[in-house]
């Protein structure tokens, strides 16, 4: 009967139910979008580091993230390669430069250069063309998300980067940058040429460890050999990039702050509507008390009401959130929804409704059952 009472109380006043559900829905959508953006940003920030075939990264001191790195000497690759426990040392070039659109105007891009045969960092999710096509003259690959921004329509189109002409040789899908700056994949030497980097410079050395090699020992060895460079594990570089983009720039704090705000607003709306609903049904709760119901019985009714609101609000909120996720899928800032985030949202919704129920429970437990005689 506790569930029946809760259900009927909830559906008895349809307008209040709608207000409650809108409150929960608003909260869920806001939290889902904010946390989804956060997850999307996270994925974009670390995607290059995760995709690169390097257990250790050798880079210029003070490098804050993947895109913004100073060049290092190309010979450092050989110093790394000569270290015991190193199976491969792959050079990589990344740098910002201008992309001049064939239609006029220019935009900033991040050029990524690696030799396809090295297997260091190759484009993935290729939907048109082939990675082997990057060996062709002037060839570059871009993500289809940025076609319009780069002023090109597809394979075969040309543009100018620096002083060189480039030709679209392939398209990827879903390789997007947190800075909304398009990535342009090409070969190592062409990348140097496009960003005007001397031939004796590179940006990173990706170190692939030999089977059984201890990463810490190898790192220490390489650091001794290259005192002017920094050697980070993949996890460290990932964390450093995340710290820079999400926390040093404040972007992540803003996203998490938005999510917290969503929770607070949702809790206040649900608490307010549950409280006023309980207040309207106060005489019924007093009657229950007069009939001898325990405090626990009344708690169950209110919590069931809150739980029902949570489930209904969650289903509606997630429907809208998933629609937004779908619509954002092909934009420069995709919102990500994972099973873990969906489960977290459900837990947050239930917690939000349970907390909201506390004020209502407090109100009911303070009522004087004798009020049943004064109606």
């Amino acid at each position, binding site marked *: *009967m*506790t569930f*029946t*009472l809760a259900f*009927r*109380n909830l*559906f*008895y006043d349809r307008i209040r139910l709608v207000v409650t559900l809108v409150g929960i829905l608003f909260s869920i959508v806001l939290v889902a979008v904010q946390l989804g953006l956060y997850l999307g940003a996270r994925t974009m920030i670390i995607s290059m580091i995760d995709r690169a075939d390097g257990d250790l990264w050798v880079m210029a001191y003070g490098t804050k993230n993947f895109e913004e790195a100073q060049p290092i000497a190309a010979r450092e690759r050989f110093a790394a390669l000569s270290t015991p426990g190193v199976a491969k040392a792959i050079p990589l070039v990344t740098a910002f430069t201008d992309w001049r659109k064939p239609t006029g105007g220019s935009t900033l891009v991040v050029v990524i250069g690696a030799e396809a045969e090295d297997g260091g960092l190759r484009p993935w999710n290729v939907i048109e063309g082939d990675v082997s096509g990057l060996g062709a003259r002037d060839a570059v690959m871009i993500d289809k998300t940025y076609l319009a921004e780069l002023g090109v329509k597809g394979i075969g189109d040309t543009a100018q980067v620096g002083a060189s002409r480039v030709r679209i040789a392939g398209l990827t899908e879903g390789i997007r940058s947190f800075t909304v700056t398009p990535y342009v994949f090409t070969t190592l030497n062409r990348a140097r040429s496009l960003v005007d980097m001397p031939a004796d410079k590179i940006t990173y050395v990706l170190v692939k460890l030999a089977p059984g090699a201890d990463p810490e020992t190898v790192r220490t060895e390489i650091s001794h050999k290259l005192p002017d460079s920094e050697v980070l594990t993949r996890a460290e570089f990932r964390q450093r990039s995340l710290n820079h983009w999400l926390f040093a720039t404040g972007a992540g704090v803003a996203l998490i702050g938005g999510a917290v705000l969503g929770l607070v607003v949702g809790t206040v709306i649900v608490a307010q509507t549950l409280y006023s609903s309980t207040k309207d049904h106060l*005489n*019924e709760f007093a*009657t*229950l*008390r*007069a*009939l*001898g*119901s*325990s*405090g626990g*019985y009344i708690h169950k009714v209110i919590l069931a009401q809150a739980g029902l609101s949570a489930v209904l609000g969650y289903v509606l909120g997630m429907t809208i959130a998933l629609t937004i996720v779908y619509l954002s899928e092909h934009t420069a800032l995709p919102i990500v929804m994972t099973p873990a985030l969906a489960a977290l949202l459900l837990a947050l919704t239930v917690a939000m409704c349970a907390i909201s129920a506390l004020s209502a429970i407090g109100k009911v437990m303070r009522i004087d*059952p*004798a009020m*049943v*005689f*004064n*109606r």
Partner: protein
Amino acid sequence: MTAQTAQPPTEPAPPSSGVLEAHDIVKELGHGAGKVRALKGVNLSLNPGELTLLMGPSGSGKTTLLSILGCILTPTEGTLFVAGQSTEGLNPEQLAALRRRHVGFIFQAYNLFPTLTAEENVRVALDVRHQRGSEAVVRAQRALQQVGLRHKLKSYPANMSGGEQQRVAVARALVGAPSVILADEPTAALDSENGLAVMQLLSEIAKDKSRAVLAVTHDPRTIPFANRVLRIEDGLIVGEERHAEGVETVHELARNRKRKANA
């Protein structure tokens, strides 16, 4: 069996075998300068098989006494025994448990749950007693049958007359088989015909030798249905009348009045 009138507090009374016994009940309401002594030392006993009426003017302490007898309010002084158990020192949860086991309530405004059907309203009283499932449904239906509402099981309060709603409330009070049924102005919101029907029902219920019924009222039309009438004024029981021999006659009188009204 008796109500003692306007006597000073005496020695603590021993536990009684009566259904409900109140000894020297004093109740103070409010605080400081606004403190009022609503009950000034009430003694009464409710015996099974009797319908007792508690009558008195507004502000005489009727409802306060009913609240104390129903373990909703606790007395400032005095002792109360419900089914032989003292209520002294019991916390609100223990008092609720006592109500659950031994007390059934009928309210002036019925206090039915508007969102529940008649059967569900009755079943709530079983649910709070942890009696659930098909047996609870059968018991609720039987209680409604007892009050003549077998055909209204699925009706909502909004679709029932005042008399029908009060009969649902009577069924709800009955279904838990309490030792005491306490009714607060059970006919006040009803027209005379429905009021009569409810009083007939209460007097029938009171014939059960395992149960006592106390109704607070100021409606003189209810007097003929009572086995006894207690009068309360200024927080004290000031009079008691017994109608032990007259009850059957009174029922006939009521039937005759109904017949006349129908004619």
